């Protein structure tokens, strides 16, 4: 919950709510990009961000993203984050 996980922003999904689709370790998740938005949201597409509990909090470069993911996998945190995302989807589905 505190470490965050790197994801790549692949599309803007909702301009007004400042939401974008991010790809996190092969999994797609809608995230809020208000904290990293500067100018037109389209400019974020293709960029990497550290994502904390569904919010892109900081833009990072690809190399940093890769290193961070590696460290998170080492710590078991990457798996945990992906499981939490799946749990969130399950909660929306009713459980």
């Amino acid at each position, binding site marked *: *919950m*505190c*470490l*965050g996980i790197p994801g790549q922003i692949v599309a803007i999904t909702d301009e007004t*709510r400042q939401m974008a689709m991010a790809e996190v370790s092969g999994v797609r*998740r*809608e*995230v*809020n990009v*208000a*904290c*990293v*938005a500067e100018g037109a949201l389209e400019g974020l597409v293709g960029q990497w961000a*550290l994502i*904390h*509990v*569904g*919010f892109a*909090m*900081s833009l*990072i470069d690809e190399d*940093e993203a890769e*290193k*961070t993911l*590696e*460290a998170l996998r*080492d*710590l*078991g945190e990457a798996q*945990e*984050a992906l*499981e*939490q*995302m799946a*749990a*969130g989807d*399950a*909660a*929306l589905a009713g*459980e």
Partner: protein
Amino acid sequence: MKFASEFRDPKAAKVLLAEIAKVADRIGATKDKPVHIMEVCGGHTHSIFRYGLDKLVHEGIEFIHGPGCPVCVLPRARVDECIEIAERPGVIFTTFGDAMRVPGTKKSLLQAKADGADIRMVYSPLDALELARRNPEREVVFFGLGFETTTPSTALAIQQAAREGLGNFSVFCNHIKVPEPIKALLDDPHMCLDGFIGPGHVSMVIGIHPYDFIAQDYGKPLAVAGFEPLDLLQSVLMVLRQIAEGRAEVENQYARVVPEHGNPVSLAAIDDVYETRPSFEWRGLGEIDKSGLRIRAQYEAYDAEEKFGIGYATGRREVEEAEGCACGQVMTGRTKPVDCPQFGRGCTPEMPLGALMVSSEGACAAYWQYGGARAVEPAE
């Protein structure tokens, strides 16, 4: 060798370790008279154990594990209050998974869920918002938990709910701040800390200056750090060098993610939605002045404490800590987890008694997971 496989750049780590040893020797740090460096953040504690950094660094350096795991410092009374809300008819109670197993006075959220309360683990407060949209006949409550890293997320979620006029969404706010408990530790006469490693992701939001008082008023060095092993070693070296040179400054080891002044959008959202509570209770540390946040009157409709008349909205209740639990001493660096009489006996990750055993970021769980278990004889 474990060392070589786990460091992406073992050569860089060796250079850093050698340099750390040199400076430690220069300031006369020994096993018996060590330099005490507190890593404030639970994520750092986890990393230190995972990579065995406490064993790799010069023996004159002792890591003191700080109160920086928001799940661990949650008092039992707050868990009880969560359950009280969750058990109200019509409520969907949503929480980060980390909080599910924290023991309350009688039960945890996990047990309450087993007993029939509609408690759902979510990844993000945005999931809770979506649940509220999809279930207009239900009251959806989100358990807002965490330091400055997660505080903006609930602030932005509340702002979004307000924009949409979602009347069935509220947040049970337990957001807490990092600088204030550090101040409380520094004011403790038993304090023996020589320097700090600051939580990088908190500073990503608040910047590095909220720590200036540590250097200026208390004369202790601090380095804001990332959580990878090389980040941690580098920040240990930065703190040691300051000690060796008689400096006390706030340095930024994690500049690639941490802007000096933080994230303006996050800070504006926090400021808009939250205000500082006069004081807030921390497990093991007691009430700490100005250490917690509450929702401003302007957003009262989204404040679960007001909506359900619970918690600080009703005045305080005292709740005793579990007997024989040394969480408080461990959190202030006075006791090592293995020296707690309950460690590995009445308290294990499967059956946690104290909060530090619940989350993988808790000092006791980290000790247990990475070999601390070996240091304790099995219970008879």
